[in-house]
């Protein structure tokens, strides 16, 4: 079982969270956990992930989102 790659996109402007997530998915065989701190970033990442055919689960803790992406 591979260890998911942890990516922190908190505080990054649009569309950097999406670009970082896409690069991380390419580099890490589709196993990534993303930490985001805005609704917009979380929504955009979820839309990207779905369009690329990956699965994702989002957990909201206070003002932050943890998005676990897998194949």
């Amino acid at each position, binding site marked *: 079982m591979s260890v998911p*790659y*942890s*990516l*922190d*996109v*908190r*505080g*990054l*402007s*649009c*569309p*950097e969270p*999406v*670009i*970082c*997530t*896409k*690069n*991380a998915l390419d*580099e890490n065989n589709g196993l990534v956990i*993303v*930490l985001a*701190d*805005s*609704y*917009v970033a979380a*929504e955009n990442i979820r*839309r*990207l992930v779905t*369009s690329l055919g990956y699965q994702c689960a989002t957990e909201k803790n206070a*003002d932050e989102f943890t998005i676990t992406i897998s194949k």
Partner: protein
Amino acid sequence: MGKKMIIVSGVVLGILGVLLVHFGNPTNMGVCVACFIRDIAGGLGLHRAAPVQYLRPEIMGFILGSFIISLKNREFGARGGSSPLLRFFMGMAMMIGAMIFLGCPLRMVLRLAAGDLNALVGLCGFIFGIFIGVQFLKKGFSLGRSQKQNITNGLAIPTFALVLLLLVIVAPAFIIFSESGPGAARAPLLIALAAGLIVGVLVQRSRLCQAGCFRDLMIIRDPHLLYGTLGIFLSALALNVAFGYFKLGFADQPIAHTDGLWNFIGLAVVGLGATLLGGCPLRQVILSGEGDTDAGIVLLGMLSGAAVAHNFGIAASGSGVTITGQIGVLVAAAFLLFVGFAFSAKTSSSQKGGIGYERSL
């Protein structure tokens, strides 16, 4: 946010863009973020171009609509600190580009929907500017991370909008209202404010962004935001035809010039600036209502840019673009390119995102 929301948001924006002309706003300028911020700069006396001075309630509506809905949905939060000073000057540069084309990307779509083919040239420039911006993003461009801030920071721009609203209602002697020209063409205050509030709420919810729609297509082939722009265009087109405002051609279009090269360059500068800043002028205004102080700084930069554009004779007019305007917009373009190079560094996601949630930028 679903596809339905972005389409509804675009359609309503297109309808209001034409209805506001019907109620008195300038022709083909029912809503224009750049022009209306320019009018506010004039109304405050920051420039003395007599035909374009009025505190446009639509802008206050955008900010307050976004503020109210983000507060209701617990999305309001003060954040900022991502190269704020540079963002101010980038806002100025973006506004100078818009003053050369005579409109922001939103007015570009509304002009196109009224048959103004000069806007088609502008659209090509806008897409070109976004394409350049995307190349910087692919090279790792970032203005740095923003941080959470004290809530008072986030309240600054909504409070500024409330003060402007109060000033337009009370109309003290030091506030200037145009007596002729586009600044004198205005929808009744309550209608303009209501339209602004509706747009503010919808765009905050749908995240509609004119630059984002082409940027996302280029980077991740995602057409989501494009549905919003298409919604604006098609609904405005239908209403323009119904009201008899539609007039196809290049010549004699309202508040526009036919200088194709400078229409192209003007909106290319806006496209580049908007891509580097993370959103078009409308998106910046909406974000500033949500507590994003970096977007608030861009808004103040646009306000100053409008003042500079008119004080220095950079702004175009119906008769074309002045030599000063040509120099001004090229300086704005050079500045944005410089920022693009200065903040681009090819990094892997591990360097940029950080492992173990370390904040590195």
